[in-house]
């Protein structure tokens, strides 16, 4: 048996054209942490069977597939994170000047994700961002994306033995699900009976996958699993940095954006994080042991920051419940050779209010405003938050 170091693992992503139709992910994102798992929600069978022990069996409840991905926000992979959480508008620009991708509040795309563990892969499909948190970790912009998904394939077992020469299909056991092959795609490579085969068909019955005639000998119950890809990175980009991020405050979005346009008018922040919750409902329904659909519920957002205390203005705004527009502009590397265009992330909060403000006194420390802002819907602008991302990735990737 082999053991595997996590450093060789990868996260691969690709948007799907339909919620329940997986694809083979082709964009590889350097991972920091991953914790996506299948919650089978087993519970002890507590029927009265004359036992003097709690139970002799576990039974399945509704299944959920969820967990977190932690990555640095580089200009290209951030596009995928935003695309999972928000509605993408039309991309403009070109490879010379950079592509501008606008995102607004709306349904994010469903994604196929693949995470490798050693030589094995976990395929998650129908994945969307339930929560997107952006923060700075020692100057580097990082993101924690909480994922919910419709299904997965990692490993199953043989339902029908394979008996040697001329094998062309594998029938998977339905112990996990009545459709255990969901998540597999033509072109995937699975290992069965110690032999690697490339799938040429995934049967609509959800249990059978086909491949070119191969000699395989394997017994009922033998493990069948998806093999990992060799990762390929389009670029190992730097993340956005706190040091290249400006935050502007204003009475409205226009004033906040103007303030964020220059270091002289921006507000120095010593810590900054923001998060957006989609509050997805992974709704169970008849015909699906896992979630049948991921439904958006009411969305919300928050912005937390710390800045040096200078005067009681923020306390006055907190006490009087005054609104403030905030614009965050993070600048990355230059794109155009004459240095006139750059990678850029712009987040516009059209209306925020202080839901919490602390100005704690600690001996030997400067006094800070520690602000927690609720991101509110601006009825006059008819929007709460917008994003614009400028990078080197064409719109077709999202």
């Amino acid at each position, binding site marked *: 048996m082999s053991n595997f170091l996590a450093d060789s693992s990868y996260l691969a992503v690709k948007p799907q054209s339909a919620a329940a139709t997986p694809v083979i992910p*082709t964009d590889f994102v350097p991972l920091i942490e991953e914790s996506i798992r299948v919650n089978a929600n087993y519970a002890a069978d507590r029927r009265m069977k004359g036992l003097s022990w709690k139970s002799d069996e576990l039974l399945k409840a509704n299944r959920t597939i969820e967990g977190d991905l932690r990555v640095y926000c580089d200009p290209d992979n951030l596009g995928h994170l935003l695309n999972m959480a928000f509605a993408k508008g039309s991309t403009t620009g070109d490879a010379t000047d950079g592509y501008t991708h606008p995102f607004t509040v709306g349904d994010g795309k469903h994604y196929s994700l693949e995470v490798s563990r050693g030589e094995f892969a976990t395929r998650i499909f129908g994945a969307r961002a339930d929560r997107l948190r952006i923060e700075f970790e020692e100057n580097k912009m990082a993101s924690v994306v909480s994922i919910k998904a419709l299904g997965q394939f990692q490993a199953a077992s043989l339902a029908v033995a394979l008996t040697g020469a001329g094998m062309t299909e594998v029938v998977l056991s339905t112990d996990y699900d009545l459709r255990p092959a969901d998540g597999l795609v033509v072109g995937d490579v699975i290992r069965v009976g110690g032999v690697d085969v490339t799938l040429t068909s995934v049967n609509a019955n959800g249990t059978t996958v086909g491949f070119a005639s191969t000699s395989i000998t394997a017994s009922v119950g033998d493990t069948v699993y998806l093999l990992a890809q*060799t990762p*390929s990175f389009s*670029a190992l980009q730097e993340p956005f940095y706190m040091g290249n991020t400006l935050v502007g405050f204003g009475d409205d979005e226009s004033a906040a954006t103007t303030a964020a346009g220059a270091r002289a008018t921006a507000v120095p922040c010593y810590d900054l994080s923001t998060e957006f919750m989609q509050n997805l409902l992974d709704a169970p329904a008849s015909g699906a042991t896992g979630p049948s659909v991921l439904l958006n519920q009411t969305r919300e957002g928050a912005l937390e920051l710390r800045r040096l205390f200078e005067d009681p203005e923020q306390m006055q705004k907190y006490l009087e419940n005054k609104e403030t527009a905030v614009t965050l502009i993070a600048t990355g590397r230059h794109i155009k050779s004459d240095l006139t265009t750059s990678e850029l992330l712009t987040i516009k909060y059209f209306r925020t209010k202080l839901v919490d403000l602390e100005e704690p006194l600690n001996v030997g420390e400067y006094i800070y405003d520690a602000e927690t802002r609720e991101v509110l819907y601006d009825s006059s602008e008819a929007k709460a938050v917008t994003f614009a991302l400028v990078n080197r990735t064409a719109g077709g990737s999202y």
Partner: protein
Amino acid sequence: MPKYLNASDRALWIPGIGKVEPGGQISAPEGFRNANFTKVVPKKEDPTKDPDKKAV
């Protein structure tokens, strides 16, 4: 070792192999799997077009 072609529209960097331009080829061990690459199948030689070989 088999050859693989970068079928994507981007230059790709592969750990342990290096950077491959779009349309570029690499030699990789059997078992290389990446959805951005396609395996290059060597063309069979046509003996009638080889001046050193005469069709029988």
